[in-house]
């Protein structure tokens, strides 16, 4: 039985795409590599704005005649090869497309990408394009952990979801109540997960989820959801409020 649980847990960690990076301080950082879909969308956005820039230039540069044509080709070259690298090395690791999708480029060790990494992965984009329409890059992304395209492999980089800076929603404060029985780690974790998601759920949905736990609770005037919150407060070690009484 135990071994079965262990096996399930291992399978779970294989399924999850979180990458752990060990820092010199001896702790593990969790990175969330971005899969093909957001990256293709980011690439499309980048394609559109670069195309727009070239198009606008195409309307105005002919005033300069052939000189304008030369400048246009130079801009084309820069936008195609070097500008994305500049964004990734100097502008928070993200081209405008990646920024819009909340992605950023990091080194494998979790540090921000510098010029070396940014240039390597952008110059190698040509190899990812082969044989056509980025088939090579897509294939490489699918078969490698961390969704690395060929350029990422050579540069030693990852494209990750930027950690959201949303402030944590506190668990609603209710008078704590000990759980009816001692909970194991998974049980405590489930309870806390529920309590932290509670503010984002509608009351009906919160009650619906809590109903699953209702048979285990002694009958009480409060709803199951409120009682689960109370237990979460107990686990958090919150003090009983002064005015509260039961």
């Amino acid at each position: 039985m135990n071994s079965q649980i262990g096996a399930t847990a291992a399978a779970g960690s294989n399924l999850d795409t979180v990458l752990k990076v060990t820092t010199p301080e001896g702790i593990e950082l969790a990175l969330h590599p971005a899969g093909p879909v957001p990256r293709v969308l980011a690439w499309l956005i980048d394609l559109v704005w670069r195309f727009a820039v070239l198009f606008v230039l195409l309307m105005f540069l002919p005033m300069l005649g052939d000189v304008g044509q030369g400048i246009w080709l130079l801009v084309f070259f820069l936008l195609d090869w070097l500008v994305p690298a500049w964004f990734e090395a100097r502008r928070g690791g993200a081209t405008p497309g990646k920024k819009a999708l909340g992605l950023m480029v990091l080194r494998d060790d979790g540090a921000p990408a510098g010029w070396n990494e940014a240039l390597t992965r952008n110059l190698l984009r040509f190899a990812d394009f082969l044989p056509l329409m980025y088939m090579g890059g897509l294939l490489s992304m699918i078969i490698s952990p961390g969704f690395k395209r060929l350029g990422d492999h050579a540069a030693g980089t990852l494209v990750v979801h930027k950690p959201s800076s949303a402030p944590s929603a506190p668990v609603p404060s209710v008078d704590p109540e000990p759980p009816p029985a001692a909970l194991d780690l998974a049980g405590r974790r489930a309870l806390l997960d529920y309590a932290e998601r509670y503010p984002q759920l509608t009351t009906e949905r919160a009650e619906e989820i809590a109903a699953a736990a209702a048979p285990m609770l002694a009958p009480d005037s409060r709803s199951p959801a409120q009682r689960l919150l109370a237990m979460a407060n107990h686990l958090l070690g919150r003090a009983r409020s002064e005015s509260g009484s039961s």
Partner: protein
Amino acid sequence: MRQAEFERRYASLWDSFGQWLENRGKRRKKGEPEPEGLSAAQVPGVFRAICSHLALARDRQYSPFLVDHLNRLVLDGHQVFYGASTSWFSAPWRFLAIEFPQTVRAERQLVWLAALLFFGPLIGLTIAIQFFPGLASLLLSPTDMGQMETMYRPEADRLGMRDSSTNVMMFGFYIWNNVRIGFQTFAGGILLGLGSIFFLLFNGLYIGAVLGYLQQIGLGEQIWSFVAAHSGLELLAIVISGAAGLKLGAALLSPGRRSRRLALVENAKVALKLMLGAALMFVAAAIVEAFFSPLNLPDPRPKYAVGIILWVLLLAYFWRAGGPRAAR
């Protein structure tokens, strides 16, 4: 310790570190005082403390939000502490004077191989076309041939371009086209070196066909005087781009005692140095090719002289510049 107590005790420390990270990003005006909060001397200690808080919070199964919050603080801190990369990019002069020629010498086996793959077909086809003129039409279409005949006709004002074009336009074109070819030759190398080999051979054959064809139809003086000045920079730049690509391929074909993954990352660092140097050579070549090479001088000898001098300087540069390579 329960989570609430843990948070109560350390929240102010976390906030002050978060505040420090935020202030760091801002640019201060001159004279503005240091922002309040953590001093630089305190930061490493605080960072280590927060790292251990993260480890504790995970171990004690505190709530996911708290763990995520600490994970983000540590990640941001990690990026500040370990993100500073010393790059050759910040010292361009040192790169050009020392690192680039040293790297080329260190990788001379690959450079020779790339040179063989490129100059072999180039010279071979140029000579072969003199005896078998039909060979040129294998690579050049009749339109190409016609266009070349006009671009390099003896009475042209400027060689190598259509009459309506200007030097600036050709400069843009050469950057866009030639540096792109260099980048492609480099990038193709990750496919076990095959892409680099293909581009080296193909460009060698193509250039050989053009040179051979124009020589064979009697426009030799025009084409040779056009290519002479920029040939050293441009041809060697292609060779070095190819060597950079082969360096990528070598990581996969013979990683030695490293994993292929590690070999690729390590070789890519060397390859990027080669490619960057080659890119600078392409740019220099484009300047010469756009502004000097097209001049149709009555006497082509000055252009030949410039070409020979550049070749000699370049070979001397790769042979000696930067001194003997220090042991790695």
